[in-house]
């Protein structure tokens, strides 16, 4: 099971955090600080896996963003890398060659997409098509509402 996922920039700015275990806020901040420092200090080409406390850290850098997950001792490291990759693919497809700015300005979307991929720290849907379909139907609902709202505003409903 994944314990948490953090996205942060090369400057160490946290861009997204998702916790699958209930930690007190203080602890969350401490963990984040420690991990960001540890990972930023690592050189490229180093191993993507780290022993950390009683769990394992799997991280990967995509352009200016680091994706970092904590998993349990028995979890599969390589496949966790691919969960990260799948998430990046989904963001990319949704935003159209995603960049850090997309995630900053649309953080809520980044959360919604992640929720379709993982629930409670376990992978829910591995099919890219199905996740995008789910997100698209969310967006559709929103658009219908927006159209409805506009119509109401101009007195047509």
């Amino acid at each position, binding site marked *: *099971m994944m314990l948490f996922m953090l996205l942060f920039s090369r400057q160490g700015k*946290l861009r*997204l*955090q998702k916790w699958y275990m*209930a930690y007190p*806020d203080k602890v969350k*901040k401490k963990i984040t600080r420690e991990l960001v420092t540890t990972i930023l200090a690592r*050189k490229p*080409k*180093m*191993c*993507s*896996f*780290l*022993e950390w406390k*009683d769990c394992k850290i799997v991280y990967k850098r995509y352009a200016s963003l680091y994706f970092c997950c904590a998993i349990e*001792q*028995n979890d*599969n*490291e*390589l*496949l966790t*890398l*691919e969960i990260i*990759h*799948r998430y990046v693919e989904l963001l990319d497809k*949704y*935003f*159209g060659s995603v960049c850090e700015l*997309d995630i*900053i*300005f*649309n*953080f*809520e*979307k980044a*959360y*919604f997409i992640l*929720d*379709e991929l993982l*629930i*409670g720290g*376990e*992978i*829910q*849907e*591995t*099919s890219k*098509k*199905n996740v995008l379909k*789910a997100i*698209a*139907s*969310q*967006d559709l*609902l*929103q*658009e219908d*509402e*927006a159209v409805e709202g506009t119509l109401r505003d101009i007195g047509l409903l």
Partner: protein
Amino acid sequence: MAPVRGDGMRGLAVFISDIRNCKSKEAEVKRINKELANIRSKFKGDKTLDGYQKKKYVCKLLFIFLLGHDIDFGHMEAVNLLSSNKYSEKQIGYLFISVLVNTNSDLIRLIIQSIKNDLQSRNPVHVNLALQCIANIGSRDMAESFSNEIPKLLVSGDTMDVVKQSAALCLLRLFRSSPDIIPGGEWTSRIIHLLNDQHMGVVTAATSLIDALVKRNPDEYKGCVNLAVSRLSRIVTASYTDLQDYTYYFVPAPWLSVKLLRLLQNYNPVTEEPGVRARLNETLETILNKAQEPPKSKKVQHSNAKNAVLFEAINLIIHSDSEPNLLVRACNQLGQFLSNRETNLRYLALESMCHLATSEFSHEEVKKHQEVVILSMKMEKDVSVRQMAVDLLYAMCDRANAEEIVQEMLNYLETADYSIREEMVLKVAILAEKYATDYTWYVDVILNLIRIAGDYVSEEVWYRVIQIVINREEVQGYAAKTVFEALQAPACHENMVKVGGYILGEFGNLIAGDSRSAPLVQFKLLHSKYHLCSPMTRALLLSTYIKFINLFPEIRTNIQEVFRQHSNLRSADAELQQRASEYLQLSIVASTDVLATVLEEMPSFPERESSILTVLKKKKPGRVPENEIRESKSPAPTSVVQNNTHVNHNKLNSNANADLLGLSTPPSNNVNNTNNTLIDVLGDIYGNNNAAVYNTKKFLFKNNGVLFENEMLQIGVKSEFRQNLGRLGLFYGNKTQVALSNFNPVLQWSAEDALKLNVQMKAVEPTLEAGAQIQQLLTAECIEDYADAPTIEISFRYNGTQQKFSIKLPLSVNKFFEPTEMNAESFFARWKNLSGEQQRSQKVFKAQQPLDLPGARNKLMGFGMQLLDNVDPNPDNMVCAGIIHTQTQQVGCLLRLEPNKQAQMFRLTIRASKETVTREICDLLSDQF
């Protein structure tokens, strides 16, 4: 930017841009505070906000939170949004709650009804939103509120696949906080059969759930094995086009494959049905075969996914540990990875091989890769990979390759990263001890360790080398010679001085014949280091010097001179001062004979597991690769591994071990009591073990000392007894850095027992501050003789966890003994008088090794009776007399302890005027010698 998006929120985008344009941290904080004030006033204002505005402000709050600021309002607005009819508002409400609300928030109760409504929605998007929220919060409240709905959603035929997927994982999340949420009975088979579902997404999610359920109740879910094996087999043999979108970079359903392989690891043996077993082995072979095929893509995603499945298959092979052929193939495959271009693969291969090294089928196979692993240790760029290589070397080490591996590790230690040195030192020390055929090699290794990485050599390591040298006569001369040589280096580590001082003090005489290491040379060499050392080491050296006086009377004056030096005799350090003056007096006053007795060679240490191993295990709980080859598992059906009970069992075991440790006080401790100062360097070896030390039995023979000690708490006791009254002071010392709260010692002594021994205990403060000590006074009045002794149960909270343990108080009935002096005639007269059946009690028991008569005498003296000399015609026999004072009567009691040296046995006879006393005293003392 996004091609399709719901409705953008302009205000939010502007705010985010503003923040990004801030030139300094201060400016950012200022902008945020302004925004917070604005939002607060909007929320408080009279004007009702419409849904869009609420949504926008709540989003801003979320963004501020993500920047690392605390948010303490807006929750009610979020709850409002969550119950909105509009999906776009609802979604933001849910997001805010998921991100910001803690599991135990009161708010949760406010949203439960809205969530219920959404769960019943006909639109799967709404249902999933609700399920994701339940899973995100995952509290007991949630479990209790939805224990009906969610299991139904999971197995109902009407539920859409996307909802089933979410429901499975939501249920898993709730199960983790409230295991009782899973209905048993017919549900079990319905849940298991989700493995056969048409929809791969449903199977993937359900497998995670089933894995957790199996861990809780393997027998009930055993039916999943066959389904899992056949599903796995179908996936593995599928072509990558078969599974369409569930194929990931040409690998068919890697996530599901890995999950199924994990699921099967819950059982051992995985299956007892030969057919299923064959199919599983075939599947595992297919996976191994595929690893040899050329890659279908150059992308790293392809190789990662493929290898993820391969590693998990290897995990299952290692877990079963019953198919030599598969184990060997796995090992070969991993061997190839050791020189792969990808750091990740090399790392994982090393890790996996650590496990293979512990199987008897693949241990030899792993050893073939020794050279590559040594190269990894030396050459890898990443310290975590080097560390893994060290772990593997440790795991693959056995008698045949120990010398080479230890040598390589020593070589590497000179340049090793600081972060892994300490652990490496421990590992080298353990391997050297474990596989030493020749103890001179062992001594060399440890001295090398100290030379190369002295700072990282912990006390346990150098204590251990001394224990071993003392216990092995054949190596003592060599050890003395080697330390003598090592000490000649101009700069040598303080740990070397400690070991050198100790060993020369014990065995310096073995090399004194050589003029190059004549007594005076040894002494001068050691003393040349004296002034550079810490007080603790100096104290040890002073002990060495007094031992020298015994070994080499000819250098007595040189040594006395050192004792007399101002810096010693008037040292600011009380310990040094005391040693210098006591040793000086000893060397002046004592005759050669007395000196020789006092400074006799150290007795052997009891053989026990290396304390270094304990330290290593503690450093890396759960992750120390074993250096132990497992017994192969017989393919015959054995009982199912129950993970949970297994864990509990281990816990029980470790408790039991801790208790045993306390009950069987190592003999060295007693020796310690007799010749106190001289061996105190090693005196606390067992105290350092970190396991709880619990010494009640020792307190049969003494009244003061440390009764109990673990990492958190030390309990000392001081007691005195007169007639039938006793007073006991318990000293609780908090060893931690935090206060222990709810500190509460409770006496456990039944009302019935209290009629015989009345114990009164003063209350203590409920808080024990960090590093502080508090005292608790107890009074005891012996009214009538009694059996056993009262227990005290101590509970407190440490770092939020409740701690509780019980300790027997040193209040056994012998404490009320008054020693009675008498001559042989009156002793035997009374002895004969007490010859009735009820007045006698006798036990014959095996002596603790080795049979220790002076030790037994000491114990008897501490027991409370008078040890009578020249009474028994046989000088080896020990006889004692005493009176137990109770309020109602006085009970006379005689004791005789007869050793049988040949048989290494003792016979203990107790005679007393009261039957219960006879039995109790006999019980207390049996097995104590």
